[in-house]
């Protein structure tokens, strides 16, 4: 029987400091990784995202969360509405350890189903019938925003951890520590790159430096200790005289920002006028 999958990546990623969907994971972004895993099991994947997020090209249908402020229930509803099959596995984008076997097992129950891990129902590693779209609408209208209400309305099968392979699949990443811990465990040799421009390059003599994945602050501290002539940090913050770009995209200043394998940190002089 054909199935669908839904990936929710509309969350704010506020504790992570950068969009979780775009965190590097095994050589690509986390959302690409999750979509690719799902595609080995299901026929169609729907990615629900917010309008602010620029996702890479995906092997999936991408829909915009119509009411992102309402939380995951609204995103799930929009995902179900766009799914092609009657049954869909739904996951958040920050599930780096999601396995095909886990998804297959969950979908094998053939009905609404959710794992219970350490006593907690995991509604973002769960199976939802597409027919729940109208129920979701009704719950939203009634202000009952928890995904659990939707599962309960479908009289879901609760699945114990010992019935499932790779329960790790339910693990999500909410903080830089959780992400970096996962990166280090997954690939103990994970490296990021630092590129130096302008004065930092001429005074240090270095153009690019390989560093261990870590928070931005940890990485700057390491570069600073290898090249003491640089001034990258001031009072625990990123020094005012430098600009930091993550992968040539956003400029960042949050020292707790996680920098993963394959990320590139550009360090530029802050005085850009001319």
């Amino acid at each position, binding site marked *: 029987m054909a199935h669908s999958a839904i990936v929710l990546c509309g969350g704010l990623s506020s504790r992570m400091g950068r969009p979780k969907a775009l965190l590097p994971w095994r050589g690509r972004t986390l959302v690409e990784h999750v979509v690719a895993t799902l595609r080995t099991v299901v026929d169609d994947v729907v990615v629900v995202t917010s309008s602010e997020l620029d996702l890479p090209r995906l092997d999936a249908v991408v829909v915009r969360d119509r009411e992102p402020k309402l939380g995951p229930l609204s995103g799930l509803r929009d995902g179900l509405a766009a799914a092609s099959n009657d049954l869909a596995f739904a996951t958040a984008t920050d599930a780096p350890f999601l396995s095909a076997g886990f998804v297959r097992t969950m979908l094998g129950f053939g009905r609404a189903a959710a794992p219970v891990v350490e006593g907690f129902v995991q509604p973002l590693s769960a199976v939802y019938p597409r027919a729940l779209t109208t129920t979701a609408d009704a719950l939203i209208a009634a202000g009952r925003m928890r995904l659990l209400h939707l599962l309960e309305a479908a009289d879901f099968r609760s699945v114990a951890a010992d019935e499932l392979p790779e329960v790790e699949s339910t693990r999500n990443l909410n903080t830089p520590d959780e992400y970096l811990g996962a990166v280090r465990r997954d690939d103990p040799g994970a490296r990021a790159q630092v590129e130096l421009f302008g*004065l930092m390059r001429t005074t240090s003599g270095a153009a690019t430096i390989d560093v261990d994945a870590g928070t931005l602050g940890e990485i700057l501290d390491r570069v600073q200790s290898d090249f003491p002539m640089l001034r990258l940090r001031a009072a625990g913050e990123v020094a005012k005289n430098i600009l930091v770009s993550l992968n040539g995209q956003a400029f960042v200043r*949050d020292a707790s920002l996680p920098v993963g394998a394959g990320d590139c940190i550009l360090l530029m002089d802050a005085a850009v*006028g001319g």
Partner: protein
Amino acid sequence: MKTFAGFHGRYWRFDLGTGTGAYIPLDEAVLRRFLGGVGLGAWLLHRESPAGVDPLAPEAALVFAFSPLVGTPLTTSAKFAVVAKSPLTGMISDSLSSSHFAIHGKRMGVDAIVLVGACAQPSVLVDGALRPTDLWGRSSEEACAALAPYGTVAAIGVAGEHLVRYATISNDGRHAGRGGLGAVMGAKKLKAIVVRGEVRTELSDAPAVLAIAKDLSKRSFGPATAKYRELGTVGNLLAFNRLAALPTRNFQSGTFDQAAALSAEQLAPTRAKAKRSCASCTIGCEHIYAFGDAKSVRVEYENVFALGPLCGIGDPDAVLAASKRCDDLGLDTISAGGTIAFAMECAERGLIAGPRFGDAAGLMALLEDIAHRRGLGALLAEGSRRAAEAIGSGSIDFAPQVKGMELPGYEPRALQTMALGFAVGTRGADHNRSGAYELDFSDTVDRLKGSPEAARLAAGTEDRAALMDALILCKFLRGVFTDLYAESAAMLRAVTGWDVTAAELVATSARIVALKKAFNIREGWTPASDTLPKRFLSEGLPDGASKGALIPRERLQDMVRAYNRARGWTDDGWLPDTVYEELAL
């Protein structure tokens, strides 16, 4: 009797047609409301330039405006503004230049010099009188050297004589670069103006000025200016390239494959010869590089970008030689590079015959031809907008200009808040009157997705620039201030004796921006002027870290509207009556 210090309270108006000059008093209220530099200059232009005048007609006014801080020990204060109606844009052009001309010009006992009329024959203005000159046809540098015994000189080169619409005025090795002020002077058949004098303005509280000056100098040695001191502005190039913000081959790309060869990181170790600075400057951002056969030139990011990547040229010797040639001929490097890059793209598309991207010899030959208005150079001397109108075939869509002025080295699609700054700028595409790129280089806005919020913040950067340009202080100092308005108020209080506050200066800055806008409206500005070439609205950047970026027309319109609202203007950008009343023109 004058009750305030820092100003002379008068300007000198000289009629080049009759050869007579007069001192005209300046009200304290005007000086306090518009300060000096671009503020005073724009006010004088309103007053002295007849509405609708041809910028190259004798009646057009050419204003040299000094400022309250000129002559004080405050670092970077030796600056002046040159203001006129631009022959390139038909709008206001307010360019800054630096050094001894500011100091000695102000010592003539005036806050500004206004030139009107035109000489009957090529002349120089020395000690308040016109003299016929045989310097016509010589470089500005030669003219400055020849007249140096009489004082400090500002002169035009051959390009100004030939009314190239982006000709410069040069003094002390610096240039009032943008908008074709050299053509205005050339149209007046004035090769040079020489200033000298002994009249100093008093300071209201000299010890306080000295204390502020000491502190400011100290701070000017700190990390906020290190890049300018150690590397110069060309330090931008490689980083811009990495962000795909380096305009390349007439803005067809944001990355240049030979960028490294032109970068300060690579050039400085082998070519840096010397460092220089403007008078009264403790920063010293001028970096002199060697090129060719024992020659040398001051390198700036804008020169290298415009004559290098923009024209597809990666040979540093060729780029530095072209930069030096622009200085000698009196050509604005940005507009020269932009117009030639535009012509190169036209040639590649088969619209005209001419050199193509990467042709360094062709670039050098065109610079000569432009300055002398020969062959294709005669057309390109008109700037890219007029050239595109003549060439047709939709070439206006990729003429790299706003209001007729060529864009500086900030790719708008990769720096979208700056794009807004370009679109609304009163003197056309310009990175000195709007500092909006600072927002793009920050975690405040998304540089690849301009927004109304970013547009509102961009207005603030324009205000701060207007204040610095009126005081005048060098913008390379801006990073050392924690509160520009409060610290500027303290300086002005000590210099002038006025009880000026930070809040007053916030209002003053916005007033100066509105004053320039009012001039443009008088000269025919319409809301349609505040836009960008179609290329930026419809073609995504092809590669690099800004790949795919473009500025949809609606996004730009939303930003322009948000900017106008932030200024308290109409959504379209017209000035409401209240603003005119406040300007009290």
